[in-house]
C-alpha cells in the first residue's frame, strides 16, 4: 500500500470508493428467554418473550457504525420477517443505521432468507454485507455463507476483526484453537461475532437516536420467489435433569468422576 497523507486517503475513501454496507438483522428472543412451544410443540411460544437484535448481528452493526463515522460508509439494515420485527429494525436505526428494509415474508428457513437477502444485495449494489455468525434462535449459521455464494462475493466467517482500506479488506477469523488473518477484497460478506467489536463498544440508543429513528426510512419490500429447502416439523425441550449430587471432599468427587461418570 502507498503511504498517502491523511487528507489524500480521506479523499480516496470518500470519492473513489464508497462503502455501502448492508447489515442483516435477525429478530430473536432475548438471551434470558425461557423457551417454550405451542400448538402441539410445532411453534415457538412468543407470548411474554422479549425480542432483541441478534447479539452476533449487533456486534456487526456496531462495526458498521464505525465505518460510517470514520470512513463515510452508508449503512442500511435489513430483516426478513413480518411487521412484528419492525421495533427491532427501529432499534438498529436508533443505534445509527441510515435506512432500514423489511422483506415482508416470514423467515422460514436459512436458504429462503439468504435468497431474499442476496437479491437485495445485488439490487442495492452493497459492497459489504455484515451478518451475524449465527442467530441465537435456530443457530443455523448458514445465511452469511449462502449470501456470499449466491452473490459471488468473498466470504469471511466467524469474523473477529475487520479493517477496510479502499476495496481491500483485512479480516481476522476465529478458527478452532486460534485465529487466522486474511486479506481479501470487497465486495465481501462477513459472518461476525463478538470480537469484531468489543462488548463495551456496543451502543445503547440515546434519546436523540430514538427520535431520529422515527423519521428514518423503513422500506417494506415484497419477497421474491424463494422456496424453503427445510421445514421444522416439531420441537422438544430437553429431558428434565436429575438433582445434583453434592459431595463433601475432593476424594469423593474424583471417585465419582472416575467410577460413576467414567470421565476421568
Amino acid at each position: 500500500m502507498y503511504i498517502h497523507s491523511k487528507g489524500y486517503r480521506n479523499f480516496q475513501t470518500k470519492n473513489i470508493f464508497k462503502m455501502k454496507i448492508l447489515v442483516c438483522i435477525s429478530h430473536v428472543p432475548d438471551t434470558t428467554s425461557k423457551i417454550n412451544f405451542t400448538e402441539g410443540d410445532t411453534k415457538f411460544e412468543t407470548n411474554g418473550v422479549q425480542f432483541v437484535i441478534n447479539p452476533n448481528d449487533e456486534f456487526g452493526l456496531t462495526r458498521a457504525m464505525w465505518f460510517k463515522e470514520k470512513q463515510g460508509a452508508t449503512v442500511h439494515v435489513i430483516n426478513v420477517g413480518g411487521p412484528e420485527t419492525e421495533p427491532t429494525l427501529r432499534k438498529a436505526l436508533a443505534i445509527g443505521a441510515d435506512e432500514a428494509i423489511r422483506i415482508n415474508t416470514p423467515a422460514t428457513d436459512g436458504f429462503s432468507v439468504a435468497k431474499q437477502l442476496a437479491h437485495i444485495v445485488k439490487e442495492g449494489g452493497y459492497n459489504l454485507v455484515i451478518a451475524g455468525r449465527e442467530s441465537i434462535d435456530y443457530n443455523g449459521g448458514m445465511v452469511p455463507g449462502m449470501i456470499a455464494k449466491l452473490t459471488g462475493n468473498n466470504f469471511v466467517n466467524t469474523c473477529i476483526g475487520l479493517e477496510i482500506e479502499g476495496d481491500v479488506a483485512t479480516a481476522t477469523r476465529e478458527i478452532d484453537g486460534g485465529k487466522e488473518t486474511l486479506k481479501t477484497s470487497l465486495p465481501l460478506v462477513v459472518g461476525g461475532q463478538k470480537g469484531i467489536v468489543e462488548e463495551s463498544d456496543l451502543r445503547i440508543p440515546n434519546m436523540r437516536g430514538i427520535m431520529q429513528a422515527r423519521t428514518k426510512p423503513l422500506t417494506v419490500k415484497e419477497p421474491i420467489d424463494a422456496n424453503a429447502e427445510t421445514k421444522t416439523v416439531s420441537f422438544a425441550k430437553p429431558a428434565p435433569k436429575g438433582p445434583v449430587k453434592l459431595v463433601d471432599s475432593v476424594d469423593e468427587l474424583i471417585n465419582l468422576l472416575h467410577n460413576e461418570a467414567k470421565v476421568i
Partner: protein
Amino acid sequence: MSVLVYTESEEGKIKKVALEAVSYAKGIADQMGTSVTAISFNANDTSELGKYGASKVLEISDDKLKKFNGEAYADAITQAAKNESAKVIVLTSSANSKYLAPTLAIDLNAGYVPNVVELPESSSPFKVKHSVFTNKAFAVTEISTDIKIVGIGKNSYGLKENETSVTKESFAPNLDAHDFDMEILSVDKATDQVSIADAEIVVSGGRGLKGPENWGMIEDLAKTLGAATACSKPVSDMGWRPHAEHVGQTGKPVASNLYIAIGISGAIQHLAGINASKVKVVINNDPEAPFFKAADYGMVGDAFEIVPQLVEKLKEFKAQNN
C-alpha cells in the same frame, strides 16, 4: 449413491471429530442401504477411517491446500459429491465445517441442517433432530431436497467402531484461480494448549475467582486433566481472559465429556452454551447458585481451598492410574 463425509485433519493427522463424523455417516449409510465415502485433505494416513465404517477414501494431496481454504475445499467436496452421486454429505460442527456448509448447500442445491444430535428418525422423508435455541431445545427438521447436508453436533453421536475394508483413491479436484482469491496472512494457534473445540474436558472459571491473577490454579487443574480452559462472559468482558475462552450463548458452545465450572453462578445464557456437555461439575461457595440445578456433581465451598486440593489429589490419582 453414497454418503460423503468430510474428514478433517490437522498437520496431517485425522482429527477425532472426523472419526465421529465417519461413525455417523456409516449409521446413515446403513439406514439407506449404501456405503460411506470419505474425503480427506493432506492426511498422512487415512486407514483409521475404515475402522469407523468408511469403504472408500478420496485422498487429496496438494500443497496449496495445506491451510484450510473455504472456497477451494468447498469446490473439491462439491466435485467429489457429484462424482460419487452422494445423497447425503456429513459435516461436523467445527469452524471449518460451518464455513463450508452454506457454500456446499448452494453449490449442490442441498438443504442443510446443523447441530444434528441423532441419526435421522426417517430417511424418506429425511427428518433429523438437532439442537436449537443454543441447546435450550431440540427441533425435528425435514430436508426436502434431493441431496442433504447434515452437520453433526460435537460429541453427540460418539465414536462407533465398524471395521470396513477400505479402498484409497487419490483425488485431484479441478481448482481455479478464484479458489485462491483470499490470501492467508497469518495463522495464530496455540500449539501447547488444548482448544475448547477439541477438548474432552473443559475447566472454566467465573467472577468468583475475583481477578485474572487467580487463574494459575485453573490452568494447573486444566493441565493436570489435559483440559482446555474457558471462562464466563463477565470474565471475558472485563478482559481477565481472552474472548476465545468465553463460553455460553454468545460465546463458544461446549460439548465436552466433562465440564468443571468454578466460581460461575450459572446464568441462563451460560448454561445454554455448555448444556451439551455430558457431565457437569460445579464448585461454588453459594449453595443457591443456579448452576447447582444444572450440574451433575457439586461442591459447596471456597474455590481457593478446593481447587488446589483437587489438583493435588488428581495428580496422585493420575500417578496411580497411568
